C-alpha cells in the first residue's frame, strides 16, 4: 500500500494561484492589524506568532536546510534587545534606528564569529554556538554601562501602538519567509541541501562550503535580530538572562520539530501551535513545561518529520517547496 502511495506524484503548490493566495492572506492580515479589526488581545497573539515564525524560519534555515544546528541563536536575540535598549535609553535615538542598529551589530558579530565557529562541524558547532551565547550573557551581566544584571528599559515616548508593532512584525515575518523560499530555489539553495546531506560530497562537486555557510549564518543572524528587537520593544525591558537564555533555542527547536524540520511551512505551523499552547498552559502553573516536553517527545517519536513534514509525505503535496519542478506538471 505504501508503495502505491509513493508512486503517486508530489504536487508542488507554488503556481500563480498559490502566490495570489499568499498575497491575499498577507493583505488581509495587514488590514486586520492596521484597520484595528482585531482586538488588542488578538494582536498580542499575532505579534508572538509572527515573531516566532521568523525565528523558527531562521533556525530551520540553519538546521533544517544547511545542517548547521545552532544552540546559540539567542546570542543575536540578546544583542538585538540590548541594541534597541541602548539606542533608546542611552543614546536617545528613535526605535527605527535602534532596530537598524540591532541588525548591524548582529551581522558584524556573526561575521567575526563565523571565522571561529565554521572551523567546527556538527555537535562541536552546536556546543560552540551555545558557549558563545553564554559568554555574552556573562559579559552583559558584568558590563556597568548596561547596568549589569539590573536590565535595561527601552525608553521611547510615545510608546509605539500595538497595531504598529503588529504590522512591523508581519512585515519581518513575510520577508523572512520570502527570503528563505527564494534562497532555497537558487543555486545556493541546492548547494545548501547538498551540504546538509553530505558535506564532503557537496564540497567535492564544487559547492563553496564556507561561503554558503556564511551567507546562511548572516541571514539568520540578521532576521533573528530584527524579530528579537521587535519582541523586546513589545516587552519593554531586556535582561541578560531574558536575552541570552537558552530557553529561546528550546522554543525554536520546539517550533521547528513540531512543525517539520526542513520545510518552509513547518515553522509557520509550529509557531502557531507553540503560541497557542503557551497561552493555554499558562492556566496550569508548574505543568506547562512538562506538557510541552511530553508533546515534543511524542512528536519526535511518532512524527519525526513534524506535522507538516508528515502531512506532505502522506498527502503528497508541498507548499513553499524548494523543488523547482513539480512531478504533477511533468506527468
Amino acid at each position, binding site marked *: 500500500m505504501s508503495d502505491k502511495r509513493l508512486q503517486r506524484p508530489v504536487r508542488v503548490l507554488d503556481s500563480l494561484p498559490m502566490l495570489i493566495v499568499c498575497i491575499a492572506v498577507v493583505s488581509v492580515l495587514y488590514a486586520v492589524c492596521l484597520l484595528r479589526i482585531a*482586538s*488588542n*488581545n488578538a494582536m*498580542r497573539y499575532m505579534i508572538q506568532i509572527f515573531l516566532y515564525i521568523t525565528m523558527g524560519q531562521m533556525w530551520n534555515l540553519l538546521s533544517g536546510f544547511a545542517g548547521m544546528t545552532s544552540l546559540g541563536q539567542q546570542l543575536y536575540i540578546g544583542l538585538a534587545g540590548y541594541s534597541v535598549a541602548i539606542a533608546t535609553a542611552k543614546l536617545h535615538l528613535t526605535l527605527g534606528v535602534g532596530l537598524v542598529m540591532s541588525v548591524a551589530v548582529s551581522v558584524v558579530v556573526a561575521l567575526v564569529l563565523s571565522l571561529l565557529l565554521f572551523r567546527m562541524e556538527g555537535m562541536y558547532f552546536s556546543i560552540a554556538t551555545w558557549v558563545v551565547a553564554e559568554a555574552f550573557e*556573562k559579559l552583559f*551581566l*558584568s558590563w556597568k554601562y548596561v*547596568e*549589569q*544584571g*539590573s*536590565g535595561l*528599559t527601552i*525608553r521611547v515616548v510615545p*510608546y509605539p501602538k500595538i497595531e504598529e508593532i503588529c504590522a512591523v512584525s508581519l512585515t519581518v515575518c513575510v520577508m523572512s519567509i520570502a527570503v528563505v523560499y527564494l534562497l532555497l530555489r537558487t543555486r545556493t539553495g541546492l548547494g545548501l541541501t547538498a551540504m546538509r546531506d553530505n558535506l564532503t560530497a557537496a564540497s567535492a562537486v564544487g559547492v563553496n562550503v564556507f561561503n554558503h555557510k556564511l551567507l546562511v549564518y548572516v541571514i539568520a543572524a540578521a532576521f533573528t535580530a530584527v524579530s528579537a528587537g521587535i519582541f523586546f520593544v513589545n*516587552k*519593554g*525591558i531586556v*535582561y541578560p*538572562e*531574558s536575552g541570552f*537564555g537558552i*530557553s529561546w533555542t528550546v522554543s525554536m527547536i520546539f517550533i521547528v520539530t513540531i512543525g517539520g524540520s526542513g520545510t518552509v511551512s513547518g515553522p509557520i505551523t509550529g509557531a502557531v501551535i507553540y503560541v497557542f*499552547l*503557551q*497561552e*493555554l*498552559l*499558562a*492556566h*496550569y*502553573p*508548574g505543568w*506547562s*513545561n512538562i*506538557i510541552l516536553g*511530553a*508533546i515534543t517527545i*511524542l*512528536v519526535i*517519536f*511518532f*512524527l519525526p518529520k513534524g506535522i507538516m513534514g*508528515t502531512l506532505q509525505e502522506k498527502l503528497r503535496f508541498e507548499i513553499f517547496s524548494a523543488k523547482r519542478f513539480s512531478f504533477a506538471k511533468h506527468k
Partner: protein
Amino acid sequence: MKKVLAAILAAAIVLGLCSCAGEAGKENSSGADTIKIGYVNPTTGALAGNGEGCEWAVKQITDYVKEHPITVDGKEKTIDVKVYDSKSDQNTCTEMAQKLIEEDNIDLMIAIQTPNTVIPVAQVAERYGVPCIATQSPVDPLANSLDEFNWTYDFFYTLDEVYESQRALWEKAGYARGSKAKVGLLFANDTDGTSWHDLFTKRLAEDGYTVVDPGQYPSKTTDFTNVANKFKEEKIDLIAGTNIPPDFMNAYNAVIEAGVKIGCITMGKCCLLQSDVEALGDLADGIMTQVWWAPSNPFKSDLTGLDCKKINELYKKDNGRVMPQPTAFAYAGLELAVQAFKEAATTDKKAVYDAIGKLKCQTIVGAVDYSKKQKGLPYSSSVLTGGQWQRDKNGELNLVIIDNSLYPEIPLTGKYQEGNATTNKKS
C-alpha cells in the same frame, strides 16, 4: 498503528486542555459581579521559595470577600484573582502581565516578589495604564527602572533603610561606626545585588567602615575561591550582602573552608526561610538578616480583622509550618487591592489608581501611607527589623528579632548572641 495512537493521544491532550481552559474562561466571564485582579507569581523556578504561599493568601482574601462583598459601581461584588506563573523568568513575567491585561481584562495588577518579577510586571501595567500595587520589592531598583510612574505604588523598604537595619546589627555585634571594621561584600550582579552594592559601598565608607569588595559575580557562580582568598588576605571582620540561597551557600562554604575568621554576618534574601537556613547546617545559627514580617509583629489587618499571630496560626494549620515573610506580603498586597476598590467604589482605572494613593490603613505587614516619593515612584515604607537565627533547646532554628531601632513599636523577641557562624568569637 503507532502513529494513529500518537495522533489520538496528542489530540486528546490538546482537546483536554482546550476544554479545561474553556471552562476556566467561562467561570471568569460569568461575573460582571466580580472584580478581576491580576497576579504574576514565581510559582516555579529559582524564586519559587518567594512564591510559596501565594495560593493560600489568594484563597484567604477571596473567601473573605465572598462573605463580605464590597460595593463597587453600585453593586455588591466579589473578587477573582487570576494567578499566572512567571517561571521566575522575566520574559514570561511581561508575557503573563500582558495576557492578564489584554485577555483577562483585569481591573488591577499586583506586582510582587523581588525586583525580578516586580519591575517587568509594573512596566507592563504602566504602558497599558492599569493601576498596579507593587510590594515585596525594594523601592530603589523599581524607581530607577522608569522616569515616571503614573499607575504604580510600591510598598516596601528603601535601600537606605535596609542598610541602616544591617548597620544596627553590626553595632549589636560590636562593630560600631567609625571603627574601621573591615566589611566583606557578597553581591551578585543581578538587579538586587547591583543596587545594594552601589549603595552599600557608598554608605559604608561614609560611616567609617573599611570596604573589602571582591567584585560582583554572576548569579549561580559555583567557584568562590577568589572571593574567599580576598577575604582571608584582607582579614575581614564581617560579611554583608544579599544573595539567592545557592549563591550564598557556595560563597559561605568557600569562605569557611579558606579559614576566614568572621565576627558577624548579615545577609539578605537567602536567609528568610527556615528551610534555606537549615540547609547551611551547623554554621546556620548566628547569621543575621533583616526581618520585614514576623508572627510577633503587633499589626492587625483593617480588612479581615486578623492579627499577625492569628494569621500565622491559620497558615500553620493548613501548611504545617511558620508563615514565610513573602506570604505575609502576598496577603497584604491582596488586602490593599480590596481596600483600594472599597475606597474607589468603582472599577474605573484612574479612580482606582487615585484611591490607592489615598489609602491609609493597617495591613498585617504594617500601616500604609503612600505620601513618600523616590524619583517618579510614590511609595510607602514597610517596617524593617533585625533578626538572628538562633537554635532553641531542641536544636530547632528560630528567627529571633534582636533589633528594632528603626521601628521601636515592634517588640524584640530575644537578644544578640554569638553562634556557630561567629567563627571569630569575642567572648
